[in-house]
């Protein structure tokens, strides 16, 4: 009985240590240096299973304020959504809902939108959810280090992340993290039935202004055959940004 108790305790300690280790890896990924401010142009190509394509173009600016991040995005193309703006204050505190505002140029109106909503919605018809594109808090998931492996000349951690709350569109995700730069290179999202749903590949990983960056993300919905390619063009870090651009006023004025 004592042996069983000790074995259980050791096993529990091992699981806790493994979880802690996996969480530390994910924290390192999230906290990988990316400057206090940054800007980028994004081009999204949506490809359906018949090969038909649609294009979305966006410009975004971001600023870290302590542990929180402010982001403002302007939609440039297609022209029916041109001028639409999206402002987010992403709080590091997992208990705190993000602040979000959406400006709709056709109505000339800004709407406060729910911080809790839309995280699981697909972003502009793409295969990325708002959560995939934003900074998901590490503590929204439980992490487990599954293994370490090598491929393509790089060493990887493979971490399994399971959402703590219900209402997510994935039941778990497997994340491949490059050990040399703490950059995610692949994510597999599994649906509620445990089947592979979406697969995200990061490429064109390089240093820009001294910061590791991803130049291209491809998300494929393996169940529908739809995929989205997201290119980050002209990324800039530690640029001079006035904090007033992260305001509803700027959202309404546009670029």
């Amino acid at each position, binding site marked *: 009985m004592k042996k069983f108790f000790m074995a259980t305790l050791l096993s529990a300690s091992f699981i806790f240590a493994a979880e802690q280790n996996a969480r530390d890896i994910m924290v390192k990924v999230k906290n990988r240096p990316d400057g206090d401010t940054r800007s980028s142009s994004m081009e999204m190509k949506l490809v359906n299973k018949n090969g038909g394509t*649609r294009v979305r173009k966006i410009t975004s600016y971001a600023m870290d304020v302590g542990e929180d991040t402010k982001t403002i995005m302007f939609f440039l193309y297609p022209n029916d959504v041109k001028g639409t703006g999206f402002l987010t204050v992403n709080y590091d505190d997992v208990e705190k809902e993000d602040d979000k505002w959406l400006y709709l140029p056709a109505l000339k109106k800004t709407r406060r939108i729910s911080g809790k909503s839309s995280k699981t919605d697909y972003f502009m018809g793409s295969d990325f959810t708002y959560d995939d594109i934003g900074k998901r808090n590490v503590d929204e998931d439980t992490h487990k280090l599954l293994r370490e492996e090598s491929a393509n000349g790089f060493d990887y951690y493979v971490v399994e992340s399971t959402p703590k709350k219900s209402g997510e569109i994935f039941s778990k995700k497997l994340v491949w993290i490059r050990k040399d730069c703490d950059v995610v290179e692949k994510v597999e999202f599994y649906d509620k039935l445990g089947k592979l749903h979406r697969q995200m590949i990061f490429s064109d990983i390089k240093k820009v202004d001294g910061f590791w960056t991803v130049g291209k993300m491809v998300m494929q919905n393996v169940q529908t055959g739809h995929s989205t390619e997201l290119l980050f063009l002209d990324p800039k870090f530690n640029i001079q940004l006035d904090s007033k651009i992260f305001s509803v006023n700027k959202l309404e004025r546009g670029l």
Partner: protein
Amino acid sequence: MIKNSIFMLLSAAFALSVHAQENELSLQLNGFVDSYHALQVDYPHKIMSSRTRLRLEMRANYGEASLFSSVNLAYNSLIKEQSGAFLREAYFDYAGKYLELKLGRQIITWGVADGLRITDLISPMDYTEFMANDYDDIRVPVNAINLKYPGESFSAEVVFVPVPEFFVIPSGEDNPWSTPLPPNTSMDLSGTPEKRIKNSEVGGRLRFFLENFDFSLTALRTFNKSPVTIATYNPETENVVIKGIYEPMNVFGGDISIPAGELVIRVEMATYFGEPIALRNSSDYMLKKTFNGLIGFDWYAGNNWTFMAQYMHKFIIEHTESLGMEENTSMLTARISKEILNNTLKLSVYGMFDVDNVGFYIRAAGDYLLSDQITLSLGSDWLGGRRGTFKTYKKNSQIWAKGKFFF
């Protein structure tokens, strides 16, 4: 008017481009072509609308300054006066660090209500085709000076409109949305206030954007933009003239938006001081103090479902039996939308319910993005009820189709 405005804008654009030799000038030209056609559901299945237009939007940016103009070149096969070139917006815009200026013809929208007006009173509505137009086309631009202090989480705004604009009411025999008048009756809506400085419109708004909620406070000296009508009988000609009344009124109000989980709660309210209300016998009107409030709920339910509901209430303070309006009146609206097929198809239903007159207006629509440039829409408008405006338009229930090409 349109020629002068376009000439002024082109002159200013030319002046900007001359200065641009040493600085950066950017010019943008965008717009769309759309074609909308509607058919009456009931017999005799008349064509309710058939119009095509080219919208041109030009913006010239130079440093902190810009010029913007928006012009409609329209052909309306039913309503002849709706064919031609129409200037919608044309303004000069300057964005300084502490002061922003927008000068010229512009659409001003205030408040948080969706499609209803509590504090959003400056730009009136164009009801040429009642509510069958898109909401952004229904708003009437005004010639205004708009000054704003732009803060990070606070802004203060002052608006001055030298000559206010008023509701456009459907009229003319060629317009299926004109309200038929009884024999020997005519409508006279020419009584808008004289173009004098004392009849100008001025307002201010303070807006706050905070962590847990947004709110704003507004004050406005305006007019009832939708005419109150009274009838006068001329015994000599044996004619009845329905005359539109426009009176100055002061408005104090505000709004608040509070996110709560997946919901956003919107509240907007205002007191109108001196709002004209027609008497029950339509012979005259009285100036009353009224309270106008709205509560709305937006539910972003995930999976591209959106639900919105609003309740609007009007209360006439010191109400008397002689008034032609009840002491309490209310309106309900609801909107449900769902996007499917990777957001290429949007299905939506919007409804307004006039509680007191048991009248309704329902618009069901499907918008399909055929490509990045082309949107095809099909829809229907259903109107009816026991009394009131929606009942008047019962026979105007229609189905419609629209194509829109963006460039």
